[in-house]
């Protein structure tokens, strides 16, 4: 596949340069890698899967890699002197290296977690523990006191909102947020009044799982750095769909999940800048994350093991590493360009009478995640009619109730794409959507 363009993450549009997306042949080859896409639904109709922002489908190679691990290498990692333990540990660490290389991180900066939600909670609870004095002087950057502030955005997924609300409740810190404009972008007009000397954490999503808008990472990171705040990036929607390089983005922490990037469920990763992970106190404690344990006290292993207590989900990590490799070989610049093409096709739904898109109507700095409402028809009913044609979309608030409240809607329907999504599928979706209002007799 051709990946001639250099798409820089951050403030630049995904695929804004003259990148070539996926050719018809390449796309057909990609689709052939995904066994589930061959099945039919609702009475023998082809499946049109437009719910990849919720979870992606998995290529055969990821499934095979997991099975192969169980069939050939299964053992506990980082303990035991037998050959299987060696091989399992090697697979586990190779997967870490693959994921690290994929997101522009060093190996020691990737911590396995059961998912992105868990990863964000690790950081939030580390602040909690540091605020109680854990981690000593090294962890001073993680200490919060009443009057300190944590800044999020109105567009956050609950996973990057509720943990910070809870952290505020535990420490007396105050939660503030960056509002959202009418077209679903972050409103940075008052950024300097929101991110101030009191700000200790600035947590935000790289790409909104509702509007598809890409956040201006460079601007936000610069604002945080000016005041010495740490940045936490929810990268769940960006990592599967566009080139992401955490070093280049300059964020302090990032979280992303395996299952949205063609990998298995039950695994995700926390990225942390090495010096910060080294200074950060552990949250989940127990076996495997220690150095010396006496009855009185314990010293902790260096990162990443310090944050990987208990037996790890090794097969899933190996699967996630394989998924990272699969996407890396496909080339993320081309994937991003493919997304931009699909976003343009999806956004044509705005021309259907009664359909209103929640989010940007242009393809600059946005991915193929398009949420919408249909006048006079509830999102659930929209989803049901599409489902009757074999078209799978998400309906509801997509774990972003405040953002839906901001737009005065309780629920939206959402179409989202992945590497295997075709223009033909988006056209089928548009055609089915055009018939929804007539079905319900909406005027």
């Amino acid at each position, binding site marked *: 596949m051709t990946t001639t363009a250099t798409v820089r993450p951050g403030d630049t549009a995904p695929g804004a340069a003259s990148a070539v997306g996926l050719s018809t042949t390449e796309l057909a080859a990609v689709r052939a890698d995904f066994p589930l896409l061959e099945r039919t639904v609702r*009475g023998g109709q082809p499946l049109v899967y437009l719910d990849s922002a919720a979870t992606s489908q998995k290529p055969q190679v990821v499934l095979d890699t997991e099975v192969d691990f169980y069939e050939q290498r299964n053992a506990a990692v980082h303990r035991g002197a037998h050959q299987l333990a060696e091989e399992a540990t090697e697979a586990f660490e190779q997967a870490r290296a693959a994921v690290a290389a994929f997101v522009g991180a060093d190996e020691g900066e990737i911590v396995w977690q059961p998912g992105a939600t868990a990863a964000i909670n690790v950081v939030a609870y580390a602040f909690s523990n540091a605020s109680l004095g854990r981690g000593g002087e090294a962890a001073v950057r993680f200490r919060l006191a009443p009057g300190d502030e944590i800044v999020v955005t109105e567009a956050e997924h609950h996973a990057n909102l509720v943990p910070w609300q809870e952290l505020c409740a535990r420490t007396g810190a105050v939660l503030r947020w960056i509002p959202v404009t009418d077209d679903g972008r972050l409103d940075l007009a008052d950024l300097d009044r929101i991110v101030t000397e009191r700000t200790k954490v600035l947590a935000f999503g790289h790409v909104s799982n509702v509007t598809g808008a890409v956040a201006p990472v460079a601007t936000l990171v610069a604002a945080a750095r000016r005041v010495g705040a740490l940045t936490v990036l929810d990268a769940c929607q960006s990592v599967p769909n566009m080139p992401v390089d955490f070093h280049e983005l300059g964020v302090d922490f990032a979280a992303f999940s395996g299952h949205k990037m063609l990998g298995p469920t039950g695994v995700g990763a926390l990225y942390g800048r090495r010096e910060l992970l080294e200074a950060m106190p552990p949250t989940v404690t127990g076996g495997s994350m220690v150095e010396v344990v006496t009855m009185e006290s314990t010293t902790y292993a260096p990162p990443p093991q310090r944050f990987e207590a208990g037996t790890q989900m090794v097969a899933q990590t190996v699967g996630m590493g394989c998924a990272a490799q699969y996407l890396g070989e496909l080339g993320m610049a081309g994937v991003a360009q493919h997304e931009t093409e699909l976003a343009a096709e999806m956004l044509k739904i705005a021309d259907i009478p009664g359909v209103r898109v929640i989010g940007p109507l242009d393809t600059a700095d946005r991915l193929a995640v398009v949420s919408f409402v249909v006048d006079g*028809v509830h999102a*659930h*009913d929209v989803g*049901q009619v599409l489902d009757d044609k074999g078209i799978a979309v998400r309906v509801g*608030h997509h774990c972003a109730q405040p953002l839906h409240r901001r737009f005065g809607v*309780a629920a939206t329907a959402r179409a989202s794409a992945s590497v295997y999504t075709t223009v033909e599928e988006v056209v089928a979706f548009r055609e089915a959507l055009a018939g929804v209002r007539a079905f*319900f007799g909406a005027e």
Partner: protein
Amino acid sequence: MSTLEQMYQQVILDHAKHPVGRGLVDLPSADQGHLAGESHQVNPTCGDEVTLRVDVTPEGSVAGVSWEGQGCSISQASVSVMTTLVEGAPLAEVARLDRLFHDLMSSRGKGLGDDDAEDALGDATAFTGVSQYPARIKCALLGWAALKDSLARSGALATS
């Protein structure tokens, strides 16, 4: 009829468009011997919600139901149909209808296979098709949950 049409029967679409009982009515004062209760129910997965008030006569019958809500056509139509069924009904009959409707929703599209029961449910049998869609059963049950809870809160269930 396609399964989609089985789900969205005309009677459901009509009730969704012209709901019965929508618009909250002030609850009667206790000195009239009536019991009254209010309940707010939410379906957290989709944000559907209903606030329902019930007014029970001293003799233990439903004097009136009023409600306000937002949500999909299934949830809104179901509250509306339920309102027509339970107004004027003794509480024992309301309990029976609630049980029958729950049975219908567990029938996976087969219906109750009992003419007496289906006669009692009247228009509510139109929701048989909904029971083929596990994700939508909760929508149909939202109003019934609000009625049950508001009756419990009214104290009428303890005395009947």
